[in-house]
């Protein structure tokens, strides 16, 4: 996956913690929400693997921007930036949460 700045994306609406022990670095409040890639930050070993002593997959890490009102209905018109690994990102254009 190679996403340039400005690419519209959606964070997967996945809840792996419901299926058993996991280590997840994707905050719950962005799952299923749409945002915009700001930039590629680099490639890093997956902390979800490291936490369980598995051989880590390399993940591309992206800074993704969201409008705060898209995350919290009572928020002001500011923005939020968060680091998201590529396996949590899907193409935008699907039904918005």
């Amino acid at each position, binding site marked *: 996956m190679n996403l340039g700045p400005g690419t519209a994306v959606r964070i997967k609406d996945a809840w792996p913690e419901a299926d058993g022990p996991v280590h997840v*670095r994707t905050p719950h409040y962005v799952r299923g929400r749409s945002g915009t890639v700001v930039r590629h930050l680099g490639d890093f070993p997956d902390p979800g693997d490291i936490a369980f002593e598995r051989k880590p997959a390399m993940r591309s890490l992206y800074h993704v921007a969201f409008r705060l009102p898209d995350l919290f209905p009572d928020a002001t018109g500011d923005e*939020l930036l968060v680091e998201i690994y590529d396996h949590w990102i899907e193409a935008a254009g699907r039904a918005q949460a």
Partner: protein
Amino acid sequence: MNVREAESGRLLAALTSLLSERGLISDDELAARMAITESASPKQGARIVARAWTDPGFRERLLADGTAAVEEAGVFMRGLPPLGVLENTSEVHNVVVCTLCSCYPRAVLGYPPFWFKSPGYRARTVRDPRGVLAEWGTAIPEDVRIRVVDSTADYRWMVLPMRPAGTEGWSAEALADLVRDSDMIGVTQPKASL
């Protein structure tokens, strides 16, 4: 020894003596590394900010690659997560939070303040940043966008605040004295008279 239940002091002693016995680390190296860890404090970050305010080339390098720029300025970064620097401008004000735990750029800011780790700060900053900043006495004008940066993964983030008005001609040392940890997290802004 059961490593899951061992008392932490005993565990540390066992680990360091094994590393030493096997020649993987010397006592001098260990002492030097502990001194580096203990020297980390917001004063390092304040020095970096003051240099960025007074040296445009350094500011540019700092924003492009925080890790390389602070290493150039004498901060030991080997083995630490990469550092990203977020610039406050007349259009955007950055504020950093770690909602998942307490990720913090320790090399430049030292240990995180207690409130940074509190559930209240972590939960409220993403949802109501203007409300949180107001409690710090920080009013960001309506036409300035607040950018909340949730530090969730491999990077650590530090804010480069705006240089306060009334500091024209000040030395980098005098400027560094104005900069607090809260300014580099983004909940406050440095002022010429504290």
